[in-house]
């Protein structure tokens, strides 16, 4: 009888709180619905248990009856209240890589890049080890923190990749709308909003390394809205501090950068899905350092991107076999001044654009085995006279890179990958790379985006 009395007291509490807040008709309806749902759940559970009990009693010989009922009374729930019952979900990503390079440097012709855009370190080493904590804050907010421990310049440092809050539908925003604030891997192209441990290759493609220093995760606010259409369509936009690549040296006067995006997607039959998106990100770079602080850019920078992803399960079951095609295109327009301290150019005016793209295909031919190929290419800008001979002077060369990979996924939580890269980032300087990587996840492991 404990359960019905609990239901009754819950109902009373609800009734009292509803009068106290002078609830509207819809609130009362919702509460009635909830009470009804609760009652039904308990009633059906009790009915089921009673029928089971009578069945067992009728089946068992008399001697066994006592034995069958004894554990039931012994299993009385112990009421323990512990401080950690509301602990957030905790997940860890362990990541290690052996890298062998034939070339001695990986400088990009025509670009000054950030530290995370450089190729990894040679030899064996651990990559970013990620910690994630996430939980609903209350009925209106969700919070998540992802910190990575990375080794930079011989020291282990904590890098806060994400620390954001997000509205829950209980917030009462229009249906389909979400607001996210803090630091996050923002909506831009396909890979940017994914943590690198979910990538299909051991490193990011060239345009991500050059234009985004791996990923754009500035401090900011983003609103997104899934439109009420029969197919998937979503629009959104955000405002950002302007501290992370492609920006840098924020003025601190509010939002130095703005973004907007639109996406559509759907299915073709039962076995094929696709998504297409367009994105803009533009703002002020108050001082963006590149190539280890030897190059500085100040001015307006605008990035436009488009992405397409297509998945196909040839047998109808993506668990068994799947083909994944994906491509992204970036176009960056910059108007400001560049200065290459190493080349001693002095501040030189720059107003031009650069482009970059990649396309990749991954084929899962067995439930645990996948192979993939990726091609990425950059189209360098023409440099003004003042920057001739600087790091930005590509001499008309356009860097490109090929990558081939094979990986083995033992379970959702572990993957081992072998990858071969052939990069020619500066004319005539070939770099052949072998990467052997493991990615393991322990603890809570959230669902992955499409």
């Amino acid at each position, binding site marked *: 009888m404990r359960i019905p009395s609990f239901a009754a007291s819950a109902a009373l509490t609800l009734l009292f709180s509803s009068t106290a807040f002078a609830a509207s008709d819809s609130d009362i309806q919702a509460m009635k619905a909830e009470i009804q749902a609760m009652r039904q*759940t308990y009633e059906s559970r009790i009915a089921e248990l009673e029928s089971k009990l009578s069945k067992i009693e009728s089946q068992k010989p008399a001697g066994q009856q006592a034995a069958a009922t004894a554990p039931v009374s012994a299993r009385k729930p112990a009421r323990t209240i512990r401080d950690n019952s509301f602990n957030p979900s905790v997940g860890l990503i362990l990541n290690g890589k052996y890298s062998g390079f034939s070339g001695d440097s990986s400088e990009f012709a025509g670009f000054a890049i950030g530290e995370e855009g450089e190729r990894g370190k040679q030899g064996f080493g651990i990559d970013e080890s990620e910690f994630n904590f996430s939980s609903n804050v209350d009925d209106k907010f969700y919070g998540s923190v992802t910190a990575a421990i990375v080794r930079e310049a011989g020291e282990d440092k904590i890098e806060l990749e994400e620390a954001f809050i997000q509205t829950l539908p209980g917030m009462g925003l229009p249906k389909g*709308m979400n607001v996210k604030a803090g630091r996050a891997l923002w909506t831009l192209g396909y890979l940017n909003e994914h943590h690198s441990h979910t990538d299909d290759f051991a490193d990011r493609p060239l345009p991500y390394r050059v234009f985004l220093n791996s990923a754009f995760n500035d401090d900011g606010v983003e609103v997104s*809205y899934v439109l009420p259409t029969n197919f998937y369509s979503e629009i959104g936009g955000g405002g950002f501090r302007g501290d992370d690549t492609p920006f840098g040296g924020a003025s601190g006067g509010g939002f130095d950068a703005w973004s907007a995006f639109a996406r559509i997607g759907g299915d073709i039959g039962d076995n094929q899905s696709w998504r297409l998106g367009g994105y803009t990100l533009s703002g002020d770079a108050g001082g963006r350092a590149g190539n280890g602080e030897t190059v500085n850019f100040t001015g307006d920078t605008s990035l436009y991107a488009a992405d397409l992803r297509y998945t196909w399960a040839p047998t109808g079951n993506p668990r068994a076999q799947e083909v994944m095609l994906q491509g992204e295109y970036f176009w960056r327009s910059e108007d400001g001044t560049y200065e290459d301290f190493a080349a001693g150019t002095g501040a030189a005016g720059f107003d031009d654009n650069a482009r970059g793209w990649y396309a990749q295909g991954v084929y899962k031919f067995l439930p645990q085995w996948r192979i993939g190929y990726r091609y990425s290419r950059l189209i360098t800008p023409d440099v003004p006279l003042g920057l001739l001979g600087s790091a930005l002077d590509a001499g008309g060369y356009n860097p490109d890179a090929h990558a081939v990979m094979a990986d083995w996924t033992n379970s959702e939580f572990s993957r081992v990958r072998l990858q071969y890269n052939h990069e020619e980032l500066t004319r005539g300087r070939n770099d052949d790379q072998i990467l052997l990587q493991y990615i393991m996840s322990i603890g809570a492991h959230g669902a992955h985006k499409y």
Partner: protein
Amino acid sequence: MHRMLPALFFLGLMTAVPLSAQAKLNLFACEPEWAALARELGGDDVEIFTATTPRQDPHHVRAKPSLIAAMRRADLVICTGASLEVGWLPILLQKAGNANTQPGGAGLLLAAELVPLLEKPVRLDRAEGDIHPEGNPHVHLNPHNIALIAQALTDRLKTVDAANANAYQARFDVFSQKWCDATQRWEQEAAGLKGAAIVVHHKAFSYLLAWLGIQEAGVLEPKPGIPPSASHLEALLQKLTLSPARLIVRTPYDPADASQWLSQKTGAPAIVLPFTVGGDAAGGDLFALFERSIALLKGDGRD
């Protein structure tokens, strides 16, 4: 000011979005069996979207764009729960931003929460494979579970769409009578299967076997979700030589190779059970699912 333009464009689009009115109740079913149950109880009053096909393994589905759009439209969602959809449902619920279908509300019904679960793991450790802390989630293959879930779904339909409450109740009354009769008939038909030993590919049929009193003689997967390995199959073969199994069964989405290898070695036929509504060429409804499954287990209509 030009940098504010994207934001202004965005605001403009937001206000231009038309509000669409839906006449029918939109129901989102994670798996075909729940779509079939909703069809029995909802009839013409509901518009049903099924997120997965019988060919897809419901553990491993992507949070596809089409599913986000459907979740946003939904007034009522019925899924299995017990972590079966843990890899995709949370993303859909978050992304769709639909207050009607959030956990704990009337708009989200999880079938596994309504029935007693089998095989609750004693040891929670990922070294045990893809185990579900709540227990085995494939609850729909016991008709007694379907009866309980039908009752709960009817109550939810009546709550969410009160205007049609009488119609839902009337359909439930008809369905539950028919279902009760059918269940008794199936139990009589399958009486001969009691005690039979059957090998399964994945523990997808535990509720069916428990209901019919069939013994599980072995599992092709060494651990839940881990594909069959040569050494495990070899060990299983040794075991089956001592005490033979009558059948080797798998779902439409399990790969055939392991079953067929074992079938050749042991002589026990390897068959595909429909597992869910529409899981074999005959198709049909929930009644057909059970009729066909029992016929296949008994050896009728098998090739």
